[in-house]
């Protein structure tokens, strides 16, 4: 491995461990030491599974020494948002209430698949309560903190997932994305994030939020690591009724195929309104590097965001109704008050939102007859300060929490695959993300474009200043 092992790519770590240039035990001990040193500041981990990680790393080394085939992620430390089951841990989903649940009996499907590929779980990660969050703040565990500036938000709800990867505490993390919760932390923390097509990756063994919008996916410091982990996690799973029966379609093999022949457009209208200059500049830089000059208007994106908002708040309220009855005082107030409001929305308005979703899907998919990918900002601004309650959007001061996802919601609403690529800030400024959006089941196109941008030095996970 070249450079600081804490910031080595998963692919480099796996190559070193497989060739016995480095042991998995050495890699994992280094990761655990870094977590012990930096987690008091970053608050990315809620549980460190040190004993399990040490045992697993030793077993990995023994298998390699015995000449067994090494998986593509052999010896790679990874961690998962704490709504994903880890055997022996309560699945907190960022809440106080879930601490009273029985401990998970088995690992979630995606944890099993990453470990089958040789990766080593090092812990569970902080998140916004019940995933109803874009900030990374948590009233029970405290906020996860941005490695680029610990006074700033990580973004949420997969805040610990963003902080752990950006800070070099794990090479790969898993997050969940209902309205933007992988892509927003990827943008604020300056890392790569993949929200696959709805139904592509199994959600079995994860605590739900909005079933009709929930996705799981990886965050990493390179496109190659996204593709490696994504490929390892693909495949049907009868334990998740939403996971499709489609065979795995590996993306790694085509990662270096470039963008020649791809028709790439830039989202206009809604997706340019309200964004800070930094967000627009990052988008323009990415578009210029790809030679993407066509502007495409998505049909009714404001309404799409509104419909996603309504479905989210109502499905979320339905999920938590009994907990809201029995233990309302144990919720994060910011989450509880929105869920109670969601419980009061008249049902016909929700059905209308689901009908609109059908119309919008059909209309957007027609755009993919003309284009292979669409570029859009990920967030309207760089990471806000922790505790900040409002932001300026389109010249108006609006509440921050409901509006950080203004550009992510209209895309996850219809399950499109998106890679959020990080664009480093200018003159030491904070990074910000750009979304590369492809048609359904075409993750490999979004990943190819991300790789092209990374190879050209346009997209990159910037190393944060050393935290003391």
């Amino acid at each position, binding site marked *: 491995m070249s450079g600081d092992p804490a910031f080595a790519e998963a692919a480099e770590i796996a190559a070193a461990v497989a060739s016995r240039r480095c042991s998995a035990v050495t890699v994992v001990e280094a990761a655990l030491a870094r977590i012990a040193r930096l987690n008091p500041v970053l608050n990315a981990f809620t549980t460190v599974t040190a004993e399990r990680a040490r045992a697993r790393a030793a077993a990995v080394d023994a298998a390699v020494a015995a000449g067994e085939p090494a998986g593509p992620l052999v010896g790679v430390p990874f961690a998962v948002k704490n709504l994903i089951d880890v055997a022996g841990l309560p699945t907190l989903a960022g809440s106080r209430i879930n601490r009273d649940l029985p401990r998970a009996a088995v690992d979630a499907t995606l944890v099993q698949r990453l470990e089958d590929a040789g990766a080593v779980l090092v812990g569970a990660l902080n998140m916004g309560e019940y995933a109803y969050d874009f900030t990374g703040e948590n009233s029970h565990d405290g906020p996860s903190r941005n490695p680029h500036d610990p006074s700033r938000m990580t973004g949420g709800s997969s805040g610990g997932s963003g902080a752990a990867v950006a800070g070099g505490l794990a090479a790969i993390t898993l997050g969940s994305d209902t309205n933007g919760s992988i892509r927003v932390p990827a943008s604020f923390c300056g890392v790569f994030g993949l929200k696959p097509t709805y139904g592509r990756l199994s959600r079995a063994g994860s605590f739900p939020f909005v079933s*009709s919008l929930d996705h799981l996916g990886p965050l990493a410091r390179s496109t190659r690591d996204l593709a490696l982990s994504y490929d390892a996690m693909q495949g049907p799973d009868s334990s998740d009724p939403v996971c499709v029966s489609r065979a795995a379609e590996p993306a790694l093999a085509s990662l270096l195929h470039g963008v020649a022949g791809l028709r790439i457009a830039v989202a206009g209208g809604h997706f340019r309104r309200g964004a800070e200059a930094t967000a627009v500049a990052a988008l323009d830089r990415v578009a210029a590097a790809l030679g993407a000059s066509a502007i495409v208007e998505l049909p*009714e994106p*404001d*309404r799409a*965001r*509104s*419909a996603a*908002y*309504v479905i989210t*708040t109502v499905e979320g309220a339905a999920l938590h*109704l009994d907990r*809201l*009855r029995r233990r*309302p*005082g144990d919720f994060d*107030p910011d989450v*509880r*008050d*929105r869920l*109670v*409001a*969601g*419980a*009061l*929305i*008249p049902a*016909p*308005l*929700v*059905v*209308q*939102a*689901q*009908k*609109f*979703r*059908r*119309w919008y*899907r059909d209309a957007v998919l027609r755009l993919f007859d003309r284009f292979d990918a669409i570029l859009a900002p990920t967030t309207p601004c760089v990471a806000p300060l922790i505790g900040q309650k409002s932001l300026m959007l389109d010249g108006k001061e609006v*509440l921050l929490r*409901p509006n950080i996802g203004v550009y992510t919601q209209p895309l996850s609403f219809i399950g499109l695959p998106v890679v959020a690529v990080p664009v480093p800030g200018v003159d030491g400024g904070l990074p910000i993300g750009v979304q590369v959006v492809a048609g359904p089941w075409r993750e490999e196109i979004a990943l190819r474009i991300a790789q092209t941008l990374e190879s050209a030095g346009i997209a990159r996970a910037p190393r944060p200043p050393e935290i003391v």
Partner: protein
Amino acid sequence: MSETDDGNGDLDALIEVGTRILGLPIAPEWREAIRLHLAISLAHARAVAGFALPDDTDPAPVFAA
């Protein structure tokens, strides 16, 4: 409920009756934030409901037997 008139009086009435019917206990100091979020959510819902759709548009989630 009126489609257009939801001053705080209407929202308070909806909160009062809705939480009672659903059995949701709320403390008085939570009400202001709940009212704010209810107003935001209803505004989003109305934005969607204002879009004319054909009667035969199926809602997005489809159950397969």
